């Protein structure tokens, strides 16, 4: 065990897998000598050479196009998109290429070895273009996996599993947690399962569901609710695609109530998919409408960031509303 922050855990995961498998290559804007603008790839170029850790020109569509090609060849690319907000120029390469590569070729070719890492999320005074949470844009795209860790321990275990998983994975890192705190992370190799949710806290009155940095928010809201005598179960989805319907439904059947929280705008956010599925599978168990506590349906603002965020107060109020329905 070592104390690591989330960035260090990612760096450690990359070192772990690069030492084992020389097909693993890490690249993106500024990831080479400099180690990335957040330093997630620090020292990799020194350790593994310029061939395996390198800067690319400034082109996200190129980075993912290149990565698709490498993966289809049998290399194991770990491509970084500097901010989640800048992943959209690569949208075609991801949605039309990465996700359909295996299917369209009948399984002859695939880019299953590809992992795309990108920081996402708000709360860092970044405004429109350094704050977005784009997971739902990709969740509508069969063929991808989407994984989001909530702490350093998960970051390492999920990243190792993502890189080794034989499907393309979009690995989204909650950047406001990058250096927020350190926790115990095994120095050894380990993996956490993809597609499985994690129960953060058991409870009986309502299920609170989220991922990434919003789990903290759910915990704070749950504490507030506890003072009112409300027992919250908190589930961290961890994988957005495919997602753990069983775990969520099991919890909802127990508590009878569900609240989903995410930073992205509400309309068309991933909470809508969860709500649609859960109302179908747990119809007779629901004692109140499924609540969504999300970002507003506006671009991510700067000056009004606090007001925009689905924080613990908004969550707590929604818990009360749901309980009092």
């Amino acid at each position, binding site marked *: 065990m070592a104390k690591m922050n989330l960035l260090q855990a990612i760096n450690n995961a990359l070192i772990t897998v690069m030492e084992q498998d020389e*097909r693993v*290559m890490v690249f993106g804007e500024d990831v080479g000598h400099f180690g990335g603008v957040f330093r997630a790839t620090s020292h990799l170029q020194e350790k593994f050479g310029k*061939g*395996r850790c*390198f800067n*690319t*020109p400034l*082109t996200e*569509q*190129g980075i*993912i*196009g*290149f*990565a*698709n*090609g*490498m*993966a*289809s*060849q*049998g*290399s194991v*690319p770990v491509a970084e998109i500097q901010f989640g907000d800048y992943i959209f*120029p690569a949208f*075609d*390469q991801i949605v*039309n*290429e990465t996700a*359909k590569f*295996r*299917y*369209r*070729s*009948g*399984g*002859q*070719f*695939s880019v*299953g070895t590809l992992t795309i890492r990108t920081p996402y999320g708000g709360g860092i005074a970044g405004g429109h273009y350094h704050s977005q949470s784009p997971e739902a844009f990709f969740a509508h795209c*069969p*063929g991808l*996996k989407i994984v989001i860790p909530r702490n350093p321990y998960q970051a390492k275990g999920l990243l190792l599993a993502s890189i080794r998983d*034989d*499907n393309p994975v979009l690995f989204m890192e909650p950047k406001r947690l990058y250096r927020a705190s350190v926790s115990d992370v095994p120095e050894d190799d380990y993996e956490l399962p993809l*597609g499985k949710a994690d129960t953060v806290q058991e409870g009986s009155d309502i299920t609170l569901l989220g991922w990434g940095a919003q789990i903290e928010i759910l915990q704070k809201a749950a504490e507030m609710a506890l003072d009112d005598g409300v027992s919250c179960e908190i589930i961290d989805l961890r994988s957005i695609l*495919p997602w753990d*319907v*069983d775990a969520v439904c099991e919890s909802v059947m127990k508590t009878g109530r569900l609240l989903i929280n995410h930073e992205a705008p509400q309309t068309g956010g991933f909470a809508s998919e969860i709500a649609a599925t859960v109302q179908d599978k747990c119809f007779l168990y629901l004692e109140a409408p499924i609540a969504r506590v999300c970002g507003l349906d506006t671009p991510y603002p700067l000056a009004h960031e606090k007001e925009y965020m689905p924080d613990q107060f908004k969550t707590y109020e929604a818990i009360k509303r749901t309980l009092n329905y």
Partner: protein
Amino acid sequence: MKDRNHLAGVSTTHQVHIIENGLIDIPMLQILQPDGSLHDEAVEPEIDRETATRIYDTMEYIRVLDERMIGAQRQGRISFYLASTGEEAASVASAAALSDKDMIMSQYREQGALAYRGYTTTQFMNQMFSNQEDPNKGRQMPIHYGDKPLNFMTISSPLGTQIPQASGYAYGQKMAGNEAITICYFGEGAASEGDFHAGLNMAAVLNCPVIFFCRNNGYAISTPADEQFAGDGIASRGIGYGVKTIRVDGNDPLAVYAATKQAREIALKENCPVLIEAMTYRLAAHSTSDDPTGYRSREEEDKWRAKDPIQRMAKWLTSKGWYDEEANKKLIEKSRQDVLAALKTSEKVDICPIEDIVTDVYDDVPWHLKEQLDALKSHIKKYPDAYPKTSGRVK
């Protein structure tokens, strides 16, 4: 910062100096004259009779295949086809200059390269009938071939996407120590996509052994080249990327062969990209959905029909004493019969069983797709007539 790209080596001037079109001449390699005779100054590339004949025969084969499949589409037997008439030399002769280990990433009009690699008539048909013998499992429209054993990447419709992919593939080959390169085909229209820019620039910066082979055939569907770009073709872009570039007469099989051969050598030895622009003309309609009379003249077409690569090569082969007219006639006749026979067989082969609707989305079929498949199967059992192609096999 190394100065290579920034200031060192930059000369200064003291008057405004405008770099314009036409400043540099990018000549086009032509070895065979349009009449099939060797240019006086040209050096015949090293090519043995077997290779030359195989190039020629493949071009003839492709022309037959294209004709027949257009016919089959008209008869409603397949839904779509896309011919390469007039452009056969560009894909066939370039493929001939490669090693079988080299990866081919094509756009969609390079059936000639695939045939040269050894794709059989039956394989062509299975893909076009989307039947269960197509290794791509019938998931894409006709002409989206792909064959792993032949190192021919499954074609994707979105234009230009294969260009940065080819750079990455080649980078992977280099890192793995393979003695192989990647060739990436695309049209002059596709070269307008952002992916072209990304792919060429990345290959140059990251030293990828890849040949970018542009078929400049004058049109992107109805859009003529002069509404596609204003520079001197695609070749002139090579300068901007610092990529070695060769322009070649795409209707001259010897020139295409020689250029690609040399490009491959450079790419492999120097670990760098090479751009080839083949000047040719799409004599065919864009596809069976298109009618070119709406946007170009018969005269223009005729001008290019006169530059036919097949006739040109036939004349050269004759001059070498390598051409056997009788054998050629037989070959064409046999190709026709093969195509018709394969067509008849393949169109009767079943499409993949319904289970394949959910395979290959992921490496394994995840729980939610299993659920969707199960529901679909029960549904098909209830309405067998609505899903005649799969219902008979649903258990």
